[in-house]
């Protein structure tokens, strides 16, 4: 072989730092790292200096000190004597609540709108196009304040529901007086779980298991014999029927419970007892809050136009004790209580009240200032929820439409040509493919929705920005720590969601050559 100039393998030269691919990347990275560290150090140093100038420190201890403020919507027990940490948690849960509700409705809206936009029906398609473009091209904030304004300005105040002397009222409740739409929110019946609720819950769980088992069975049978069993309809029946039957059965069984009164004459009924107390007297009932008994006692008292108040106690024992101590003059006893065991000084009223279904609904009724009872879905929540759902729904509609369009017509034609019916074609061919296209951008829309829920600030919804990032920071002056936690929360949430997304993406990736 001919000789070539032997490349001299000299030792390390400084120019290699720049010209040698091996060292060059190191050089650049080190330069970058140094720049980064310098910048970071500069920022931290400034913070330290600024904090010390203000005489502040960096400390998360404030999270355990007393919050002192009230929050109107709490998913977990909270009152103003609890800590800032607890208040933040309440805020976090509120954020998650509205984000979750928003994601669900946005998906429903989006799927419907996306599919309808592809409809062959010209008017429907155009209507959906107007919806989608309208929401996509106008700032979310504007929609939130707009919906909030509709809710507060064009819905009646609670006092408009009051029946005036001439028997009319400016506004009335919906659906048999169970739902009230007011400018403070929508009041809906709240479920109260009675003693049989556990059984009911178990039955419901059992029917879910049954559905699952049935599906497996149907699948296995199809593999074996080819026969196709009606899965959806049977599942629906299994889902609803057993629970309803058990509910009806338990309601049928429920006995009347005994009302025990103090300070009247034996043999009275409730109305009689109330009258016996005289015009200034008041029926005070000891009830355990949150139970069906409490609900039913209150309902009975309300219907009896007696003057009454409720005293909340911890449990049945405490009620008896309180009654004996004279703190209240009415308690309720479980059905079939032996009259002999009625505590001293009390007597059973002649008209007991129903013992209660496994689930009772606490229906809102107009009280002094506001509706009482029931579940109040506040305007702030509704406005935020609706706006987020409608806004994100418009984006999801486009994603769904794109996903379906991405599946070429050839796929459905091929399925038709094989004799598959349109609905089977949808389930077996189109949807599985469209979902792969739809789900990734769908999840990033969920992410956007979650982040956008911080616009709660526009309507005074108490989300994590309002509690931790708002009042807490304001009361404690820990803006640096608070904002850091707030940012950390959102960041963690979105990393979590995008992590899930990545896992999904990797699992459904189409296999290719």
């Amino acid at each position, binding site marked *: 072989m001919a000789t070539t100039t032997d490349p001299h393998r000299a030792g390390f030269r400084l120019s290699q730092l720049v010209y040698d691919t091996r060292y060059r990347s190191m050089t650049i990275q080190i330069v970058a790292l140094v720049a980064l560290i310098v910048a970071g150090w500069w920022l931290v140093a400034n913070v330290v*200096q600024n904090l010390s100038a203000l005489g502040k420190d960096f400390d998360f201890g404030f999270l355990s000190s007393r919050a002192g403020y009230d929050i109107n919507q709490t998913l977990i027990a909270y009152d103003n004597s609890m800590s800032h940490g607890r208040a933040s948690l309440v805020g976090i849960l509120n954020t998650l609540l509205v984000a979750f509700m928003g994601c669900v409705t946005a998906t429903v809206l989006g799927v419907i709108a996306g599919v309808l936009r592809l409809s062959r029906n010209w008017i429907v398609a155009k209507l959906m196009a107007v919806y989608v473009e309208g929401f996509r091209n106008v700032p979310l904030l504007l929609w939130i304040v707009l919906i909030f304004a509709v809710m507060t300005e064009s819905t009646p105040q609670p006092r408009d529901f009051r029946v005036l002397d001439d028997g009319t009222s400016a506004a009335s409740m919906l659906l048999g007086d169970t739902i009230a739409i007011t400018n403070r929110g929508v009041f809906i019946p709240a479920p109260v779980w009675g003693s049989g609720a556990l059984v009911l819950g178990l039955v419901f769980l059992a029917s879910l298991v049954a559905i699952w088992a049935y599906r497996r069975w149907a699948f296995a049978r199809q593999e074996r014999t080819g026969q196709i069993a009606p899965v959806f309809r049977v599942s629906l029946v299994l889902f609803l029927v057993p629970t309803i039957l058990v509910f009806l059965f338990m309601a049928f069984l429920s006995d009347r419970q005994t009302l025990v009164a103090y300070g009247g004459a034996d043999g009275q009924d409730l109305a009689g007892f109330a009258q016996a107390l005289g015009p200034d007297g008041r029926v005070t009932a000891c009830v355990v809050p949150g139970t069906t008994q409490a609900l039913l006692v209150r309902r009975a008292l309300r219907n009896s136009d007696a003057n009454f108040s409720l005293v909340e106690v911890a449990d049945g024992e405490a009620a008896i004790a309180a009654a004996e101590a004279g703190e209240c003059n009415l308690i309720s006893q479980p059905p079939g209580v032996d009259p002999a065991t009625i505590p001293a000084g009390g007597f059973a009223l002649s008209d007991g009240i129903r013992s209660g279904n496994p689930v009772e609904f606490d229906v809102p009724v107009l009280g002094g200032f506001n509706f009482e009872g029931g579940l109040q879905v506040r305007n702030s929540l509704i406005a935020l929820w609706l706006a987020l759902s409608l806004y994100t729904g418009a984006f999801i509609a486009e994603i769904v439409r794109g996903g379906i369009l991405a599946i070429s017509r050839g796929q459905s034609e091929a399925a038709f040509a094989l004799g598959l019916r349109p609905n089977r074609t949808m389930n077996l061919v189109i949807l599985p493919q469209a979902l792969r296209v739809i789900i990734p951008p769908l999840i990033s829309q969920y992410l956007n929705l979650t982040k956008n829920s911080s616009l709660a600030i526009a309507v005074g919804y108490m989300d994590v*920005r309002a509690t931790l990032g708002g009042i807490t920071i304001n009361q404690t002056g820990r803006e*640096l720590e608070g904002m850091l936690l707030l940012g950390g929360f959102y960041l963690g949430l979105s990393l979590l969601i995008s992590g899930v997304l990545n896992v999904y993406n990797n699992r459904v990736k189409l296999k290719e050559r």
Partner: protein
Amino acid sequence: MSDTHAQTVPYVRESMLPQAEPPVAERGVVKWIRENLVSSWLNAILTLVSLYIIWWVVSHVWGWFAGSVWNAGSLTECREILAGEEGACFAVIAERWNQLVFGFYPPELYWRPLLALALFFAAIAPVLFPERVPRAMFVVTAAMPFVNVWLIWGGSLWGPIFVALGFVAGWGAWRLAQPRLGVLAGAILSVLAALLWWGVVTGWASPDFARILPLDLQRVTSRDIGGFLLSTIIGLSAIILSLPLGILLALGRQSDLFIINKVSVAFIEVIRGIPLIVWLFTAQLLLNYFLPPGTNFDLLLRVIIMVTLFSAAYIAEVVRGGLAALPRGQYEGADSLGLSYWQSMRLIILPQALKISIPGIVNTFIGLFKDTTLVVFIGLLDPIGFSNAIRASTDWNGIYWELFVFIGVLFFIFCYSMGRYSLYLEKKLSREHR
């Protein structure tokens, strides 16, 4: 009829049939209605429901809209004019039009933002329609940011000129140093040159120039800027500034260099993972903690910086998509010709990747433009901020729809037309690439 049995009867058509009209049910309005409105039971019901919805909306809105009052000094006056009739009170818009559009910008200076806007359009024309606009227009593009700053805030033209010259200095240093000292040293030198220029020469020379040849415009402070002008300024400056940053981040994210890659990823994810509103609060309330004690600069500037960082993260992802869409062969083609990394990026990769990314960038901009409304929470008066302020005044207390409808419609027009443009681009690109 056709008894053309297999092998036996060949068939030849002697005369061609002409086009015939389809049967009645298959043409014209009948067909259209049959296919589009009542093709099935479900569809017929949907049609009825939609018609009902349309009727409901129109019947509710029409009277309100048709009876609208355009000339009144306050809501009460409006109500008097309406005298109990249904009708909108768009007088509020007529009266506060200037505020909603320009904020407190001095009325006699309205020509300045308008001129700036015109200049902006002149500047992006060569970017948006590269085939139809001469390349010389890029001069306008380069000068636009500086001239516009001057037009909008006023003051001496020398400030922007010196800032611009700083870039020129940096570029000059690069041109001088890079061939001799290589890329890294060239880059460092050019940054140093620019910094030197801004730090030393500008402070020393620009007042003198200002004295010799004032070129002064009346100053307008940031607090006077509001309404749509504010949204537009924030939106446009953020998108323009975030573009280079976003490209760098995208390159960083594509890079094999561990630290640079991870830093870019972390930056992008952190920015995107946290809501803009939190970032705005940070800009308003916390930024001072991170700056040397005593520094304090314009809130609007801080917002623009924050929004720029925010949109840079989004742009980075868009550009990354564009980079990923380029076939590997383009990188290899450039390498095999001996182009260096930055040369191949600048000459081969980015021109193509950016072109693919333009629709995405426009969409990012639409999102950004809508998001500028969030600045109302940190006390800047964008249109929504003004709507609050207007409603707080005794004259217009109680007016909602008119303002919201107006703002909504303006935003809609902007965003919708930009959306159309990006759609048009996408179609064009997919035609070209096939």
